[in-house]
């Protein structure tokens, strides 16, 4: 079995250049590649384009990259909860492409699956449809959407093995599996790294074929955005 292990986050992200097109897993702050983001912050790179459902909060997640002005463009579905983001956007320092969440998920899935374009009903009749081909199938209107593929995908899983096979936990799965498949180089950080053969082959969420580098992360903060408890 092919061994994908690298030493740590610094080694994993060492060759991501300025101007790179990245994907980062996570929904809100859940399932984000905390260690890779921390390692990127140590690098002197800028003008990144990042595909991520959200843009973190001011002082955590992708928000940290925004603070350091490392991001040129975000491709996301929802970017609230972030004052620095708003400031950079309004001042013209940052570009943003807003995409319906399901379309974003499917475009990334299509990138990994070698499907260059597909049709979806989301956004028909809205400004999302501007400039896109509209076609009727069986009496309903659909937009044609293109695939998304990245130079580097940075993803976070719960458990992984040295062959790159991954298991996620709870709703921290979200965009991570599709982004793994859509990355030319996919870097997976996991809470627990085990030897190939220890995970049940029938219970793996992301096959190792999609992962080029894997390492065991440390000091996960897993910050909670909306701590709600039963009254």
């Amino acid at each position, binding site marked *: 079995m092919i061994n994908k292990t690298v030493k740590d986050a610094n080694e994993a992200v060492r060759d991501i250049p300025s101007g790179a097109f990245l994907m980062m897993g996570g929904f809100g702050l859940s399932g984000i590649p905390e260690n890779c983001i921390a390692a990127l912050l140590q690098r002197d790179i800028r003008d990144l384009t990042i595909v991520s459902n959200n843009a973190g909060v001011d002082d955590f997640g992708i928000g940290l990259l925004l603070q350091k002005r490392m991001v040129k463009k975000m491709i996301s579905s929802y970017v609230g909860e972030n004052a620095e983001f708003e400031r950079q956007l309004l001042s013209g320092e940052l570009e943003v492409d807003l995409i319906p969440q*399901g379309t974003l998920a499917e475009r990334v899935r299509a990138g990994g699956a070698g499907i260059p374009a597909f049709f979806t009903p989301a956004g028909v009749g809205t400004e999302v449809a501007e400039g896109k081909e509209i076609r009727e199938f069986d009496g309903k209107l659909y937009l044609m959407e293109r695939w998304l593929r990245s130079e580097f995908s940075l993803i976070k899983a719960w458990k992984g093995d040295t062959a790159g096979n991954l298991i996620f936990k709870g709703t921290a799965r979200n965009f991570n599996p599709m982004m793994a498949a859509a990355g030319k180089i996919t870097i997976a950080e996991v809470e627990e790294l085990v030897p190939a053969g220890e995970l049940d082959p029938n219970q793996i969420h992301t096959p190792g074929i999609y992962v080029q580098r894997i390492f065991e992360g440390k000091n996960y903060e897993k910050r909670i955005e909306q701590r709600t408890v039963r009254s």
Partner: protein
Amino acid sequence: MLTKQQIALRIAKEVKNGQYINLGIGIPTLVANYIPDDLEIVLQSENGLLGIGPFPTEEQIDPDLINAGKQTITMVKGSVLFNSAESFAMIRGGHVHLTILGAMEVSENGDIANWKIPGKMVKGMGGAMDLVASAENIIVAMQHCSKSGESKLLKSCSLPITGIRCVKKIVTDLAVLEVDPEGGFILKERAPGVSVEEIKSKTEGKLILNGEIPEMEF
């Protein structure tokens, strides 16, 4: 005039046994509190869960288990977790029967606007455009008028659209209305103590009146 809780309570009566339901943020989330216990329904969270349970106790809190509003949650028995592509496959494929969401404006042909106010900060549409383009039944929970008293049930939406010809039913603080496929809001029920005249005066779009309009019953 209905309170937010009463709007949620009224919408809960629309829920049918065996349905899979996606609840938006705000009043729609409250609907979960009023669904009768004898109905078997499942709540979907578009970030990757079927079977949302109640909020956790302090001991149960798990940062890896949140809903689409990023709130910590729990799972009910028989829940299942999945990725975002699978989640929207469910939505887009019509497997989620009912979507309940809020709106800034609804037009008399069923268009909905709820994601953007030009000139103000844009937060993004999240999953709303996928949801309204896909579910077989879409119910809107909203205030009938804006804080400045302008009708939010319009001939056509003034704000950027989230989806076209998709809203089936609207429950406001004043009324229950259905969208006529030919265009127009069919008034079905009045809030207790609210007159047809008041609803008419507060509905900019075409209001359709068929016979006697009953008061809502709770």
